[in-house]
């Protein structure tokens, strides 16, 4: 059979057995038997090392665990102002501005969709959105990259919009692929710049966020990453 093959004979330890060993679930005879086999079988010992490395990498930077919309709302959506105040504000989206020093490759773009009530539309130049509208970012790229979305608001505060976890998350190439979260802008007025980072590896984001806050006007300069940016102007409605 060519399409389905196995590399280890049935006398070797299965991935289930090795995963259970790593999880500390084996005891007694099963544990002793597994240890004895590992001591004499280089194939299984190598596989165990492989699984252990995978576990360590996951534990070091687990992909952010999503919540259902209602549950995620508490964690992801920035609390909006009181309804009356929020209704008075407006947000102006300026499409894909360029900043000196920002390196943007043609194949790597950050996009934005706006959800107003039940209607979803792609934001364009001079798009005006209202508080309570959900903003959802998308990415387009031709090769797999580790992604993150950061922003610096009008008050100079920098935050990581995506992901929830500490490091940029790998995504496969695609066009207009939505990121698994949406966000609502808070009431801080003024210019807000959103940066999409497209990186070769799982860049740790806290130093990037701090640098963004410390150097107003400068795009994040991270080795191995290209950057796309969206400029947003948040204004109160007349």
């Amino acid at each position, binding site marked *: *059979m*060519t*399409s*389905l*093959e*196995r*590399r*280890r004979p*049935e*006398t*070797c330890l*299965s*991935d*289930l*057995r090795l*995963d*259970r060993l790593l*999880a500390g*679930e084996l005891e007694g005879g099963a544990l002793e038997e597994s240890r004895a086999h590992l001591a004499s079988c280089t194939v299984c010992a190598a596989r165990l090392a492989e*699984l252990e490395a*995978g*576990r360590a*990498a*996951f*534990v070091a930077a*687990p*992909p952010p*665990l*999503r*919540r*259902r919309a209602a*549950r995620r709302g508490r964690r992801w959506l920035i609390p909006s102002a009181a309804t009356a105040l929020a209704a008075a504000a407006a947000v102006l989206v300026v499409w894909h501005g360029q900043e000196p020093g920002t390196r943007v490759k043609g194949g790597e773009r950050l996009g934005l969709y706006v959800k107003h009530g039940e209607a979803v539309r792609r934001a364009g130049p001079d798009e005006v959105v209202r508080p309570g509208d959900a903003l959802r970012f998308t990415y387009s790229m031709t090769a*797999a990259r580790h992604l993150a979305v950061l922003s610096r608001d009008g008050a100079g505060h920098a935050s990581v919009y995506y992901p929830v976890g500490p490091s940029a998350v*790998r*995504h*496969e190439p*695609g066009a207009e*692929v939505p990121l*698994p979260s949406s966000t609502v802008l808070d009431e801080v007025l003024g210019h807000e710049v959103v940066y999409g980072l497209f990186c070769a590896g799982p860049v740790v984001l806290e130093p990037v966020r701090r640098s963004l806050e410390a150097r107003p006007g400068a795009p994040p300069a991270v080795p191995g990453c290209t950057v796309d940016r969206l400029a947003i102007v948040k204004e109160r409605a007349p």
Partner: protein
Amino acid sequence: MTPEEEIERLYRTHGHSVLRRARHILGDEHEANEVLQELFMSLLDRPGQFRGESSVTTWLYSVTTHLCLNRLRSQRTRLRLVEERVAPAQPDEAPARADQRALAQQLLAGLPGEVAEAAVYYYCDEMSQEEIAGVLGCSRRHVGDLLERCRERARAWEAAP
């Protein structure tokens, strides 16, 4: 520890094997991540699903297998995987290996439920027939029959023009 905290702990300690297996079975990083999220979101919504009738790892193997096979069977996913010729799970994966993976996925998508499950455990997880019998809750002999049906289907696939 609240049920939610317990599931977050489970995610950190066992998420790696769910993701690895989903990646292996589906051969697609995005789909594998979706399975990881779907499984743990479901647990967050209904924390009592794991009843302690087997080890946590064994139970997660079973749930992950079901979720992956459902995705492979879904027309939308299958068409997309076929159209993309299946993105290699590893960037440096050889084209021949990727083709072999694509064939395996198409085969799995077309197998009856229990046969596909046995095939995943035998070929992806390299379990013994006895272990598979334990996970599926059937006899070892029945597992042998399931695997034979899988081999027959594979032979028919390979013989097809």
